[in-house]
Every structure is written in C-alpha cells, then in structure tokens.
C-alpha cells in the first residue's frame, strides 16, 4: 500500500518537475536571445526583459493551463458528461459576448470592467446551460455537447448581430457564426501590468480542491444531493462561479483557449480513473505542461514569428477530441 | 417454422449469444426465460433482424432471412420491443395503420382498412382510436402497439418483455390476447418473459437461456422442474400444481 502511494507521489513529482523544466525552457525562447548564463551574471537588460515579458508570459501560460483544465473537470463533474467543457457549453462564447458588450457600451473600458461584465455574462450563460441540460430528456454523452455547441453558436450569432450593427466586424472577427477569430488565444502580448487578472484563477483552483467530492455528488442530480444532505443550488453556484471567473479572467487576458478543458481531463481520467480528489493535481499539472509544450512549438515552428496558441491548441486539441470520440464509439 | 443455426452475437468481445441452434415450432406460444444478461433480448433481436448476428443462419419458412426482401420479410415476421416511447403526436388509428406499411407502402386500400379495424377491435381499442398515443396509460399504450403488430398480420410475432411495467390485471389481459391470437389466428408467438409463472401459465414451449446458451428447450411441462430451474436461475424452486398448471414458488 505504502509502496503504491509512494509510487504515485513520485509520478506527481515527476509531472511537477516536467512543468518546471518546460517553464524554464519557455523562459528562454524568444526573438531576443537570452542565455541562462547572462541571467546568472545579473546582466541588467536581460533580467529586465525577463521580468517584464518572459516571466509574465510563462506564469500566464501555467495558470491558464491549470485553470482551463480544472474548469473542464468541474463542468464534467457537474454535468456528469465527459464531453462537456468551456468549449462545448457556450462559456467561451459568452465571455466573448461580455467583452463585446463593454466595447459597445463603454468603449474606453478598463480591464477590470471588461472582466466583471464578461464574468457576469459567462456566469449567466453557464446557469442557463445547466438549466437546459436538466430540461433535456435525452442526456446522452454525445448529445449534451452538441446542445452546448449549438448554444455557443446562438450566443455567437447574437455577438455577430451587434458586432455587425456597430461595425466592428473584423476586430470582432464575427465572420463566422459558430465562433470567431476575435480573441483567439495569444500570449505574445503578455507583459507585466496587463496579465495579472489571470491570478484570479488561483482561488478557483483552491476552492475546486476543497469542493471536489461535492461537485461529484451534485452531478448525480438534485434528489441524490438532497438525499445526501447537500445543498444542490449553493454547491452548483459555487462551481459555476469558479468556472466563470476562471474563464473570463483567461479570455480577457489571453483570449480563447479551445478544447484544453475538454481534452486534458479526459486523458487523465483514461489513465487515473475518475476519483476527482486523486486526479485533480494530475489534471492541473498536465494541463500546464500541455499548454507550455504547445506554446513552445508555436513559437519555434515559424521562428521568429509565432503561431497563436489559440490556433495551436485548436488544432491539437480538436484532433485529440476527434480521436477520443472515435475511440468512445 | 423458424430455425436458428449456430447463432452467435458478440458485443465488444463479450459473447452474448453463443452458438445457439434451435427449432421454433409453428402456431405455438414460446417463452424465452433466463436471468438478466442471459441473452434473451439479443436472441430475439437477432431473429427479428433488428440486430445482425456475427455468425449463424436464421431460416424462416425454409428460406434464409438474408434472401428475403426487407419488405417481404416484414409480411412474415414482426417484433415489438420493450421500450416504445413516441415523441410524436400520433392518433391510435394512425399508429396502428403503420402496421400495414409492408403491404401497401403507406397507400391504404380497403383490405388494409379492414385489417386495421379488425386489429383495433381485437384489442378493444375502438373507443380509443382517435386519441393520441402519448396521452394513454401504460397498459393502453401496450395494447396499441400490439394492435399495430396484429394489423401487420405476420405469422410470427416476436415480443420483448410485453409485460414490462404493467400491473397484474393488464399483464393477464395482454397474455389472454396473445393466447387468442395464437388460437384464433394461428400465429406463432415468441416472447421474452421475466416472470417464470407467466411463462408457465401461458406458453406451450419454454427456452431457458443461461449465459448466452440454450440450457433447456421443450414443452412447458417438461421445463418447469425444480432441478432445471435451479440450474438456470441459481435459486431454489418449489413447484405447486393447480388445475394441471404448474406454479413456481421461489420465495424462500
């Protein structure tokens, strides 16, 4: 027993070490070549570059990776459906609609206002989505994400409607009705001073850890939770608040990171099973590692330019999801 | 007569029906019994070609079912599955009329109309024929679906747990109807039944399945025996006789 436990801890440490290594690699990639040696010699210019641009980027990457994967995990527990995630529940689209609203109503917006509005819209949309799912009679694993994607499509069509009306189409990129290029995830603009909102994901991660088993219980429905003495709606609200806060913080600072919240929890559950408490740290770390790898590749393949992370993740994540789907069959 | 030859059906590497060979006599009521997961419903589905067997042949009236045209086969054999929820606003008579599709492809002629009325009367649905199916009670709904099968007028009628979710009164009512179908119209009825006593009271033959294989097949009298039943269900049975019918007591 002890051996197994040690073995698992070892694996967890291994994963953590991997994230650390990847983070360090990520620090030293960029147009301006910085070598670790220069940093050790306290070369002023390089250190400044590191603190202003590279550190924030890497930190944002790690937090985003952790945040998105955990969000996916919570949503999957709450809906009891492996294929539900921010991408397949309209949450990402809602965050976008929130940002568009601020653009139209208060054009000289501040980051904080953007975040708050986007958070409110996302939260209402997730509540709505849960309501819709509870209304569905046919809750198959494949049908719920279809409804979620359609729901996202509707939110997007509302976004398009107003974007077109106020003539901000290319900025908003609402050219496509299902999802837009606007706010495609991109870490290249991250600098000290404009990324700190992502730290808001951290409390959500902590709360998730505390509430883990409660989310599993409410996923089994109102009656079951009542029977087990749990307040369904308050736990549900806490879960959705965490998810919405994380998502809007990430969308406002780095843009849309599709599929991450879907694919990471599924891969981990394939290897580690579904005990939320046990899989949480793995999911979080693996999410961070995955995002770091995608970012590093994106920065290297067309060096000195970079492929936006939204595109990288969109492709890699989309393909992984397809494989999951076909395997599930 | 329906003959099954070496029927095998596998789901994801677990064989559910294993090499079943069986001859089902014509004009009788035949019950398939067995515990959960014994393969009864799968076997029934395979006979009704709703499921494709991995191996083996099904021969109906001396012809392999693969040689039948789908439409023609539907004039010989019909199946009623256990879950029949409809999302449609459909009147009773409209649903029953679907039973004539194999003959007229949707354009009803006078023979079709007669058969539909006959089926409605047979199941005592004349008063309900203009009602919507989704407004009916469970027992009524089951009768409506049965009426559709009667209108389809096939020699072989396959029923997957026709008594599912019905109370005792309605169960007996359905069984009596099946008996009448067999007796008056000479239909062959093959059904999956959970309650061994219903099988014992109403069927001529019983096929007992255990883990995908036919354990026993024969006349009802010969199958309802404590030893055989224990072998199939793994619980003890006490057999009581009443009016020449055997009743099983398994409440120990």
């Amino acid at each position, binding site marked *: 027993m002890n051996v197994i436990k040690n073995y698992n801890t070892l694996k967890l440490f291994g994963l953590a070490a991997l994230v650390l290594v990847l983070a360090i690699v990520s620090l030293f990639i960029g147009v301006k070549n910085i070598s670790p040696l220069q940093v050790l010699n306290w070369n002023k210019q390089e250190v400044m570059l590191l603190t202003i641009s590279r550190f924030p980027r890497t930190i944002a990457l790690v937090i985003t990776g952790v945040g998105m994967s955990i969000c996916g995990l919570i949503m999957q527990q709450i809906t009891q459906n492996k294929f539900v995630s921010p991408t397949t529940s309209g949450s990402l689209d809602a965050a976008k609609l929130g940002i568009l609203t601020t653009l139209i109503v208060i054009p000289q917006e501040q980051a904080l206002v953007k975040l708050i509005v986007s958070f409110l819209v996302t939260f209402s949309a997730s509540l709505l989505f849960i309501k819709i799912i509870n209304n569905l009679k046919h809750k198959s694993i494949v049908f719920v994400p279809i409804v979620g994607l359609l729901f996202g499509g509707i939110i997007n069509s509302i976004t398009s409607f107003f974007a077109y009306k106020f003539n901000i189409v290319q900025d908003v990129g609402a050219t496509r009705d299902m999802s837009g290029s606007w706010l495609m995830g991109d870490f290249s603009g991250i600098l000290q001073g404009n990324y700190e909102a992502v730290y808001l994901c951290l409390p959500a991660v902590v709360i998730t850890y505390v509430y883990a088993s409660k989310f599993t219980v409410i996923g089994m429905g109102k009656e079951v939770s009542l029977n087990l003495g749990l307040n369904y709606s308050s736990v549900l609200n806490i879960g959705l608040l965490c998810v919405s806060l994380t998502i809007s913080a990430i969308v406002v600072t780095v843009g849309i990171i599709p599929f991450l919240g879907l694919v990471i929890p599924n891969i981990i559950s394939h290897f580690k099973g579904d005990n939320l408490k046990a899989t949480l740290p793995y999911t979080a770390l693996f999410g961070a590692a995955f995002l770091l790898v995608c970012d590093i590749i994106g920065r290297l393949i067309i060096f000195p330019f970079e492929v936006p992370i939204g595109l990288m993740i969109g492709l890699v994540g989309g393909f992984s999801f397809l494989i999951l789907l076909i395997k599930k069959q | 007569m329906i003959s099954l030859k070496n029927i095998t059906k596998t789901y994801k590497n677990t064989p559910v029906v294993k090499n079943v060979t069986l001859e089902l006599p014509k004009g009788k009521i035949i019950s398939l019994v067995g515990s959960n997961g014994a393969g009864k419903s799968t076997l029934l589905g395979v006979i009704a070609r709703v499921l494709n067997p991995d191996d083996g042949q099904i021969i109906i009236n001396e012809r392999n079912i693969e040689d039948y045209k789908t*439409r023609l086969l*539907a004039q010989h054999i019909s199946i009623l599955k256990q879950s029949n929820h409809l999302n449609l606003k459909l009147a009773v008579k409209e649903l029953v009329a*679907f039973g004539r599709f194999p003959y007229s492809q949707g354009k009803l002629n006078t023979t079709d109309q007669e058969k539909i009325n006959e089926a409605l009367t047979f199941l005592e649905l004349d008063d309900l024929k203009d009602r919507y199916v989704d407004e009916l009670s469970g027992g009524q709904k089951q009768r409506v679906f049965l009426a559709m099968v009667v209108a389809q007028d096939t020699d072989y009628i396959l029923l997957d747990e026709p008594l599912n979710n019905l109370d005792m009164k309605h169960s007996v009512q359905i069984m009596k109807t099946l008996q009448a179908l067999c007796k008056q119209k000479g239909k062959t009825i093959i059904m999956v039944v959970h309650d061994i006593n219903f099988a014992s009271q109403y069927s001529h033959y019983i096929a007992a399945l255990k883990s995908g294989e036919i354990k026993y097949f024969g006349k009802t009298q010969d199958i309802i025996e404590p030893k055989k039943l224990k072998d199939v269900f793994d619980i003890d049975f006490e057999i009581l006789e009443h009016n020449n019918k055997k009743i099983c007591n398994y409440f120990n």
Partner: protein
Amino acid sequence: MTAITKKMSILLLLTLGLIALFLFIGLPNNWDYALEKRSVKIVAIIVVSCAVATASVIFQTLTSNRILTPSIMGFEAVYFLFQTVIIFIYGDKTFRVINQENNFFLSILCMLLFAFVIFKLLFKKEKNNLYLLLLIGLVLGTLFQTVSSFLQLIIDPNEFLMLQGSLYASFNSINYDLLWYASGTLLLCFGVVFCFTNHLNVMLLGRDQSINLGVNYFKKTQLFLFLIAILVSVSTALVGPITFLGVLVTNLTYELFKTYKHQILIPACCMVSVVSILLAQYVVEEVFQYNSTISIIINFVGGIYFMYLLFKAKKL
C-alpha cells in the same frame, strides 16, 4: 384533413402574396430591368428556402430530434475554409483566377467530399450513430474554423472585405446560370424525396420499428443523408450559410401543422421558409438599410427561438 387543407391554402396564399408584393411594389418606370432582377432574387430565395427546409425536415426525422439542423454538421465550416483559402492564396486576383461558376462547383465539391468522408468513417451496418456523426462534424467544423480564423487574421483588410461578401448569405448578387443549375438539382432531389415520403413517415418511428415494418433502414438513411448533403451544399454555395434557418422553419411548421406526414410537412416547411426569408430580406432592406445581412437576422431570430425551444420542450 380539412383543417390541414385550410391551413395549407392560407399559407400558400400568404406565400404567393408576399412574392407578388416583393416583385411588384415600387417598380420604377423602366420596370422590365428591375423586374428581371427581382425575379432572379425571388427564384434564388425559393430555391434556398426549399433546399434548407427539405434537408432540415428529413434530418430531424432521421435523428428524431427537432432542435438539430444539417447545417451544423460542418458543411458551412468547409465552405468558409474554402472561401478563405482561395482569397488567402490569390488575394485581390481571386475573381480573375476563379470565376463565380467555378467557385460554386468547387465549393459544392468540397462540401460533398467532406460529407462523403465522414459518412464513410462512421457508417457501420449495425448502428449508424447519427449523433456521433453530428458531433464529429461539429468538431471538424470548429477545426476548420480555427484554420480559417487564423488565415483571416493575416489577410489584408481589403481582401477581408471581399471575403466577407461571400461569407454572409446574400441574395443581392446571384449569378443567373448558377441559379439554373441549383434549381435543376433541387427539382431532382425533390423528385426522389417525394417518392419516399411514406418511408420517411415510418422512419419517424425509429430504427427498430422501421426495420420491423420492412424499411431498409440502413440504405434509406444513407440515401437521405446523401440528399441532405446535396441540398445543403447547393444552397450554401449559392448564397452562403444561414445556420439557424432550418431549426426556425421546421419548428414553426410543426407548430402550425400538427402532423407527422411528410407529404404535408415538407411543402409546408418550404413555404414557411420562403415567408421567413422574405420577411428577413424586408427587414434587412427597410429597417437596417442593408446595414445587416440576412444570415445575421435569421440567425439572431432563429437563435432566440431555438433557446425558447430548449427551455420549453421537455421531450427533446
């Protein structure tokens, strides 16, 4: 039956009336040119309406689900990607390199190819899981969209305007010849569909019941999916995508005509669809003074209606 005939007649009158209004109201003095232009537009509207309506009704019957539309299966994403890619490659020379006609046929080809690939991938005899097919189509769609959006990000803003023209559904610049091809295809598909309306009625009862009643379910599903693919790609290539039109018009039709008979549902839905597009076109021209597009209006209204359906209907 009489109630249905009555409703059908009213709907027919309404449709014809709206068409007449659209054609003849406010004709200028040199009316023959204007009338010709308007006729082309109205024919395009009818073709697209009927194609989308028919495809959606059949698709919802096959999936026994009323909130789905074949447009979301990925066709539109393929169309977007194709349009984006050619503009990305040829830039402002696009219209010289690929004329409208070639673009039309190549778009259709791409969409049909896509349909063929996912059908082939997923169809096994035992269980053709249409929901899985749909989800895979949706995901492939998002994948294509990701690529398109990336390309759109790096396209020059002027070229982007060109692209926008073909990405938003519009009935304002229809090619005369293409309209002929599209109408021909539509009529052909209609012919096939009307041979099998009774089969569609049976298929509403579900897979097992259809097999029981002697419908070759596997083959028929394939046939209908193929027809749907043709109808959707032709209408998309002709005017661009209108995603939520299908959900909107089918459900309005079911509400109006409480029947399961496809002989009635399909023509009725076509008419409802024509009426909806005409109204949307009116809103675009008169209310928004062309400052919006028909797909945006329809998706907006259709989307909201769709939400209403999701909430109201407990039987999805």
